[in-house]
């Protein structure tokens, strides 16, 4: 125990003397939580639309003004031929083409039926599919209005319709900030814990101080615990700062018990710190450790369900995400913060994270060789 006390004293002094780390503790949560949720918005706006109008009637004018008034679209071209409109897509000036055939108004009123053609530039997948969907909805609504205005109401609807009303629980306004913030908190502790721990032992290898440690009778697990605890405290501190920022800026207050939330984070930190320490036992230079950690960090973040849900991933990716500790914290943090889940609900997450923590730290201790 006394050895650990001396190790902790040393580590804390070194960490607190390091200006970069001191700065990062405050700057990283502030910047990440302010910028990312505001920028990473799934709502697509400013879709450039080009209209190829062969009809030039008052009905097409109404439809176009309806589209531009929605706020999602920007009219970048109004031409008389599809060819011209297509040129705009080729030059990346337009994302969508709406082609209105000649006689649109006449046929719509007389024949009750008309066809419109939408061409989508699918280079940007999200913009294309969402833009297409928005446009279809606008046209459908417009169509319903015309029908109501023009068609004689019959006693019963000749086509049975089902009206769908949906309610968004736990995030009633479908606010993406609310959805992103808990995930970003999870990423925050992942980045801090992963990188700091991965670089730490390697730094001692580079400066040669590890040699002086290895020649002392220090126990391996004492050494690893001495490295683990300071970063664990640091990780929890940064998480706390993040929670305060989430409350101040987005008004997000955890619905669930704070103790449950901190239990998840604490166990997760042990796992990710163990992972970082494991990497540092394999590497000889900080450059190597940085590269390897970055590789895993990308997988942890992109396959952890922060941006794209794991449910929509192919089966093999779901299996991979089972081995991604970040995915458990991202999910658990959302559950506790947004839904108010209890300990019972996140217990499976905590158990799995504990298993990661034990396995990774055990491996790190095993792989740290005092005698080569």
């Amino acid at each position, binding site marked *: 125990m006394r050895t650990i006390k001396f190790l902790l004293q040393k580590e804390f002094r070194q960490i607190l003397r390091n200006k970069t780390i001191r700065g990062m503790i405050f700057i990283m949560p502030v910047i990440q939580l302010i910028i990312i949720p505001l920028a990473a918005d799934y709502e697509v706006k400013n879709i450039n639309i080009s209209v190829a109008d062969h009809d030039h009637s008052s009905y097409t004018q109404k439809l176009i003004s309806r589209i531009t008034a929605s706020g999602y679209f920007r009219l970048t071209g109004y031409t008389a031929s599809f060819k011209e409109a297509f040129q705009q897509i080729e030059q990346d000036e337009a994302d969508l083409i709406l082609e209105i055939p000649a006689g649109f108004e006449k046929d719509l009123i007389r024949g009750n039926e008309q066809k419109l053609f939408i061409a989508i530039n699918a280079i940007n997948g999200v913009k294309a599919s969402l833009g297409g969907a928005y446009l279809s909805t606008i046209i459908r609504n417009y169509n319903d209005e015309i029908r109501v205005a023009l068609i004689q109401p019959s006693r019963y609807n000749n086509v049975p319709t089902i009206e769908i009303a949906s309610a968004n629980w736990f995030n009633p306004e479908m606010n993406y900030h609310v959805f992103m913030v808990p995930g970003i908190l999870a990423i925050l502790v992942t980045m801090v814990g992963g990188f700091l721990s991965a670089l730490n032992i390697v730094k001692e290898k580079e400066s040669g*101080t590890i040699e002086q440690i290895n020649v002392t009778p220090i126990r391996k697990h004492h050494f690893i615990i001495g490295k683990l605890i300071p970063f664990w405290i640091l990780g929890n501190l940064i998480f706390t700062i993040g929670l305060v920022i989430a409350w101040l800026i987005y008004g997000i207050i955890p619905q669930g018990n704070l103790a449950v939330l901190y239990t998840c984070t604490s166990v997760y930190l042990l796992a990710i710190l163990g992972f970082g320490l494991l990497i540092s036992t394999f590497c000889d230079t900080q450059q190597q450790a940085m590269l390897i950690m970055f590789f895993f960090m990308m997988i942890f973040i992109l396959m952890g369900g922060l941006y794209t849900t794991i449910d929509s991933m192919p089966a093999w990716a779901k299996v991979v995400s089972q081995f991604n500790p970040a995915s458990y914290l991202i999910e658990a943090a959302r559950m506790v913060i947004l839904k108010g889940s209890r300990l019972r609900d996140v217990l499976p997450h905590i158990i799995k994270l504990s298993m990661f923590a034990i396995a990774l730290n055990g491996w790190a201790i095993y792989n740290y060789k005092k005698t080569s």
Partner: protein
Amino acid sequence: MKIQTVDRELSIKTEKLSKRFGQFTAVNEITFDVHKGEIFGFLGANGAGKTTAMRMLCGLSTPTSGKAQIAGFDVYKHTEDIKRNIGYMSQKFSLYEDLTVLENIRFFGGIYGLSNQQLKTKSEQLITQLGIQQEAKKLVSSLPLGWKQKLSFSVAVLHEPEIVFLDEPTGGVDPVTRRQFWNLIYEASDRGITIFVTTHYMDEAEYCNRISIMVDGKIEALDTPANLKQRFNASSMDDVFYQLARGAQRTEG
């Protein structure tokens, strides 16, 4: 011949100790004894295998074959017991640059299990001995190299080990500081600490009780400086070293 279980009169006892890295034999069957309290000079050209041999004796590297006992403990089975009984000062300065002098002393003393009382008296003693009262609370990174080396040595013997291993401790240090450094070595030796030191300075070799000269992984000569000079019919240790190292195949490594 079998190594006797515990021979307290010998600090180091090796027999055909070897270390191979693949095809390359860094240390080739070295056999020697170091007596308790002796100052033993471990000489050799660059790449002769000195550092590798020393790392094996410190329990930092496992030998490929042969036998060795350090402070009575086996290098294969009891590396951690060896570590409790030795001090080590590596070629590369390896105290924490971002800790102060006092913090380094406290940390390494604490790791070796010194009590708070011991830490206090030892720190004061050491700082007075080195005359660095002004610098005690400064970061080690701000000290000049000579001071760092003296501090490094003092930290290596803080826990009064049986043996202290010094790997080129005076490399890049000015002559005055080198003399002061050797005074520290003599003081430690007077307290009964065995000194195992590698050096490239032949004047320092003269300060040793006995020296060995390694060439291409083998110990080619081992005796007192006076006897070696006589045997090689040389006027100085420089000459002895030159005669032996001239035949070396390996130059860097």
